[in-house]
């Protein structure tokens, strides 16, 4: 009988200061060569479980562990983390927070060196690992020069160099753009059956190609399901009710079936979705919309996107004329001209270094643009002081902590109004309203830094809005957040947008763009490559030309043989379709 790769018996974990145990009573047996995907709603303890698999819980993270965790027969309570690393390697979410040395090669050698492996073998392992992830040619570079995807591949190479048979990956693609995520899964897909993988992931479309078993935790941290990948299809309704994210291909298949298409078996992967589409009757737009028979960029049959105003003569909220910005000696933006429609939800996309953040900061006056190049509702951010700027355009930084300057939540909100020199009673009243609106009433006296991640984000949006700014600019608002938190924020932004706020957001999440944005602005090399209504831009090849990769859902529909499917970029688009012969 072989020793199980991982053996969990009645595992309950409670973080120091927490009330509940999450996970709560997990029994799990993982055999060598298996690839297990752990799913569960936010707060079910997936990441905590991952930390317990190599002994970080309870040895280094202050938490109470009940039950036993064994890695290839060794108890994680009795074996130090450093020694366990010979048996189980970890890849964490943040690629920046797992780099120790100054070159790619040194980084891969770090683990084996710690295990007293002789120099020749260290180098042999390093070469093998770097070749497996395609970084051998870049071994002398500083890891900082790699892309996010490159750094995560480096982290996988480090795990390979340790020769640990088990690799645990905790949301390895949450901080990556679609291209980086593809790179990571291409590498994982080639590892083969000699490794045992435990994967925690929200972006299921790519992940399902590399796993063969799914384990689901429920909201209270108990084991809800354990079985083959097909479980996702068979228990789709239950899983959705649990708050578990399902692959977008599966959701698309289920929607198509609801719309009357003959779907014998809902697809799990984008490739399977494309195969399914090719077997279906051609889609036609529902009669009610009165649109043409096929989904085309010109006649998008979906319900009007939030923010896209029906009236054609749209007002302009933000405009730039000949906007050029340099950082040091490099010119980042080249004489940009653009007009952002008032009331729109405009997403700014582009590859790293395209100038997205620089553009947003110039438009919002965070880094003042050259005078006379930018106009925000009649205000030139280059000449405005903090007070007038705050009344016109609110800015939400990528990390909300950066912009907190007071010691309680209520003061933080009040600060914006004090800057406007409002009378005290008016300030108190507005702060109160904002606390209620953003669900922070109970936290009014808490230090902003002690809020949860989602609360911090809501507070930062609240402070940006409080001065009454009709335009809200956000820099990567969902970066590094889990899916549930990202959706919470986007629902909030969509709600504000429906209320009339113009939203301008830099993002790399193209599914977010498809689902929420009314307009897309594609930047390439500091110039505007495309700018227009979302459906038009997504249906063109502007994204690919600018070096971006569309979301897995968009790509799956584009890959279908019948061009009638090509305009579908989000699940909601399917609600307007029905089989043409029905």
């Amino acid at each position: 009988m072989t020793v199980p790769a991982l053996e969990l018996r009645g595992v309950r974990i409670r973080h120091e200061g927490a009330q509940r145990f999450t996970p709560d009573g997990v029994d799990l047996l993982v055999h060598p060569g298996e690839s297990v995907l752990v799913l569960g709603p936010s707060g079910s303890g997936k990441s905590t479980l991952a930390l317990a698999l190599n002994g970080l819980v309870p040895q280094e993270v202050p938490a109470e562990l009940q039950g036993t965790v064994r890695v290839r027969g060794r108890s994680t309570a009795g074996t130090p983390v450093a020694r366990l690393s010979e048996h189980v390697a970890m890849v964490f979410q943040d690629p920046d927070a797992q780099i120790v040395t100054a070159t790619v090669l040194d980084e891969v050698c770090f683990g084996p060196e710690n295990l007293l492996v002789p120099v020749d073998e260290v180098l042999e392992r390093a070469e093998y690992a770097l070749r497996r992830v395609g970084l051998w040619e870049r071994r002398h570079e500083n890891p900082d020069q790699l892309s996010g995807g490159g750094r995560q591949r480096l982290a996988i190479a480090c795990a390979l160099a340790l020769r640990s048979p088990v690799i645990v990956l905790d949301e390895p693609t949450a901080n990556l753009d679609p291209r980086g995520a593809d790179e990571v899964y291409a590498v994982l897909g080639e590892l083969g059956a000699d490794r045992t993988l435990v994967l925690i992931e929200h972006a299921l479309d790519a992940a399902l190609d590399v796993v063969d078993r799914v384990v689901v935790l429920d909201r209270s941290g108990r084991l809800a399901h354990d079985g083959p990948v097909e479980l996702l299809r068979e228990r789709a309704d239950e899983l959705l009710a649990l708050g578990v994210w399902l692959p977008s291909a599966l959701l698309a298949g289920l929607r198509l079936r609801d719309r009357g298409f003959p779907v014998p078996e809902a697809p799990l992967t984008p490739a399977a979705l494309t195969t399914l589409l090719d077997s279906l009757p051609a889609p036609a737009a529902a009669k009610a919309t009165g649109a043409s028979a096929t989904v085309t960029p010109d006649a998008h049959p979906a319900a009007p996107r939030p923010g896209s105003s029906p009236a054609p003569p749209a007002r302009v909220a933000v405009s730039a004329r000949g906007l050029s910005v340099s950082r040091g000696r490099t010119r980042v933006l080249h004489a940009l001209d653009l007009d952002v429609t008032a009331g729109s939800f405009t997403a700014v996309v582009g590859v790293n270094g395209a100038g997205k953040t620089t553009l947003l900061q110039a438009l919002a006056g965070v880094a003042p643009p050259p005078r006379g190049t930018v106009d925000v509702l009649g205000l030139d951010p280059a000449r405005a002081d903090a007070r007038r700027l705050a009344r016109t355009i609110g800015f939400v930084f990528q990390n909300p902590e950066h912009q907190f300057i007071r010691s309680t939540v209520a003061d933080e909100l009040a600060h914006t109004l004090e800057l406007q020199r409002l009378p005290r009673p008016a300030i108190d009243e507005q702060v109160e309203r904002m606390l209620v609106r953003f669900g922070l009433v109970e936290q009014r006296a808490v230090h902003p830094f002690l809020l949860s991640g989602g609360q911090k984000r809501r507070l930062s949006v609240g402070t940006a809005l409080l001065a009454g700014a009709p335009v809200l600019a956000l820099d990567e608002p969902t970066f590094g957040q889990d899916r549930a938190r990202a959706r919470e924020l986007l629902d909030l932004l969509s709600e504000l947008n429906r209320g009339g706020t113009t939203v301008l957001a830099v993002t790399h999440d193209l599914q977010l763009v498809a689902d929420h944005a009314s307009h897309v602005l594609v930047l390439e090399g500091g110039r505007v490559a495309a700018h227009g209504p979302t459906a038009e831009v997504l249906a063109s090849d502007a994204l690919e030309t600018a070096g971006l990769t569309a979301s897995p859902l968009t790509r799956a529909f584009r890959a279908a043989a019948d061009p009638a499917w090509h305009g579908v970029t989000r699940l909601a688009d399917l609600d307007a379709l029905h089989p043409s012969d029905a």
Partner: protein
Amino acid sequence: MTTAPGPDPFAAAPPPRGRFLHALNPLAKIAGPLPAIVAVLFAHTWALPALLATGSLILVLVGARLSGRALLGLLVVLPLATAVLTLSFAFWSDGGRASATPLLVELGPVRLHEGALLAGGATALRLAAILLLSLVGGLSTTGPDLARSLVQQLRVPYRVGYTALAAYRFVPRFGHELDVIRQAHRVRGMAPGRGPLPALRRRAGYLVPLLAGALRHAERVALAMDSRAFGAHPTRTERHLVPWRRRDTVFVLLAWLATALAIALAIAPADLIAQKV
């Protein structure tokens, strides 16, 4: 792995040729100038710091590969700063003893005596000498090499040495983070206004977010390091050896000899070296 002839695929960039300081052990470059630094701390004349400053300047110019900025700093900024400091210290210094010495300049109420100028010059030169002596190692040593030699020669536990190494990576990250925080606080109208008081309040406000971010980052890096067997054994394999060679011993002994010589010259009879207190 193949053993085909050719360049070693693992080799890092070769050290710059002809610049001997880079080829020395980092500890040698600390041990060599150390007695000189101590001597300068206790020296009250201008002769010793002048000799040692000149000596170490020549050593750095000949022995280290210098960027244009470093050259500019050494040859232009440093002499200028020394001159400015000399004058400032001269005006601050106690006029009592110096007023007995010849008067050099008189501009209205400002009177500069020779004694004050010499005392100011000595202080400025001492600072310059200490800086230059520490630059002997500073301009030709990388942080990782220093950490490695601390572990390899001084037997500093490797957990300490390599944690310092990892912390090296934090510096540029925090610099960038500080920039972002500064922007964010400016936009939010944190302590606007000119002058030292608002500036101080602004700086204090940057600390909390910077520290919170730093602690979280450090914690994550620590977990990642331990997950990669950091500290599994009392020692670890060293790929980069930073050996102590004979030339390191020679360098240290020569540096000490030169220091002794400089001290002897500096306290030599007044008719050999123009020495005044």
